[in-house]
């Protein structure tokens, strides 16, 4: 379980959340909805431990994620609209760099399977600068597959499906279900309500804010 308690988060001079509370259930998918600028991305970056809180705590099973940061990020995969891919490396090289960065062993077999899981096996040797938008996104999503090889129990995904075509959308959903099967926890921010079909909760930021006003 992830407990968000009395969060106050500021972006620039703007307080995006004040005294925000929520609980994210383990082993489930939480879909974060809300209108543009409502703070989805901000919340995700805070949960990942990037954005410091003005006030409040984020705890995973009694452990503060900021205080036990290394432990928290180790089993976490974070993906947002910036994909974290180097233009000057190929798809495979990028995945390889990411794997070693995470401290995981990497070999051709693993990379091949990961790329296959998002239908990118043909593009392994393509430079990111030569990829179309959707191909880039898929190159980034291929990291998710690593969860089935190494110990990963949390995904934070910010609009992961925007540029995906229908086939890769299906592949993405397969990854999600597989991850849920092995008791992983997922937080997704998305405008697409149909992204997930089963075992999911919604956190509607607009609703929450409305309640607070009234």
């Amino acid at each position, binding site marked *: 379980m992830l407990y968000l308690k009395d969060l106050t988060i500021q*972006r620039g001079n703007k307080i995006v959340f004040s005294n925000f509370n929520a609980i994210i259930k383990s082993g489930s998918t939480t879909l974060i909805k809300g209108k543009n600028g409502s703070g989805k991305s901000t919340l995700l*970056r805070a949960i*990942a*431990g*990037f*954005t*410091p809180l003005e006030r409040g705590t984020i705890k995973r099973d009694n452990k503060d994620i900021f205080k036990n940061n*290394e*432990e928290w*990020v*180790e089993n*976490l*995969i*974070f993906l*947002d609209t*910036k*994909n*974290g*891919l*180097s*233009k*000057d*490396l190929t798809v495979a*090289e990028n995945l390889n*760099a*990411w794997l*070693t*960065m*995470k*401290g995981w062993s990497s070999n051709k077999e693993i990379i091949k399977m990961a790329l296959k899981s998002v239908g990118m096996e043909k593009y392994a040797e393509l430079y990111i600068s030569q990829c179309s938008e959707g191909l880039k996104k898929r190159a980034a999503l291929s990291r998710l597959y690593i969860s089935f090889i190494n110990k990963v129990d949390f995904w934070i995904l910010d609009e992961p499906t925007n540029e995906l075509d229908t086939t890769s959308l299906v592949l993405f959903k397969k990854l999600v279900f597989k991850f849920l099967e092995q008791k992983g926890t997922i937080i997704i921010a998305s405008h697409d309500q149909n992204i997930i079909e089963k075992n999911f909760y919604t956190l509607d930021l607009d609703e929450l804010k409305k309640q607070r006003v009234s």
Partner: protein
Amino acid sequence: MNSVYSNWSNIFIAHVKRDILTNSRSLIDLISIVGFMILIIILFPLGLGPIKEKLNIVSNAVIWVGLILAIIPSLEKLLQKDFENGWLDQIATSPIPLEIIMLSKGISYWLIMLIPLIITSPIFAILLAMDLKNIPWLVISISAGSLAISLIGLSGSALILGARRGNILLPILIIPLMIPILIFGVGVNEAIKINASPYGNLFLLFAFTLIYLVISPFISALLVRIAIGR
């Protein structure tokens, strides 16, 4: 978890490898920094006139100043690129400390940009009519100061992450930090010229490098954390 910590050095090397791979696909990329430096050097005789004695007087200073100015355009991208494409976010989810990763950045920058300049520095000296006996000391002093230069550059490049017009802000922030290195670096050769011992200056250069080796990774990591926390 244990396995992760035991292979820090592997991860360190992997980071250096990635940086070298992204930044120097071909030999040509290495040539260009040397070319830039030579062009800076050319500008001085063109401005000062070709009189050998005049050049000899300024050669030492010009090489050091040129060195500092030559790396500035490349510094801006050192972290900025990875910041913009989200790689620094990914790095923040690595279980090994950010400080170590920053150190690896500094080292790979040094390998890619400074080593070629150290190797070719005798050419700069010849172009500026430096006395032959001074050239070995030039190479030694540049070698001694180069790592500090990279590490200062690293901190500077972390300082401007996400800043507006960072490219023009960066030099203002780092040149003052480079000044001690310039002074001690030039000092080595000036000492040789007057037949004094260069070791004092050389020692100070090393001391400086050591200090930066310790503080720069921490400062840079701190600044990177602030940048991705925005």
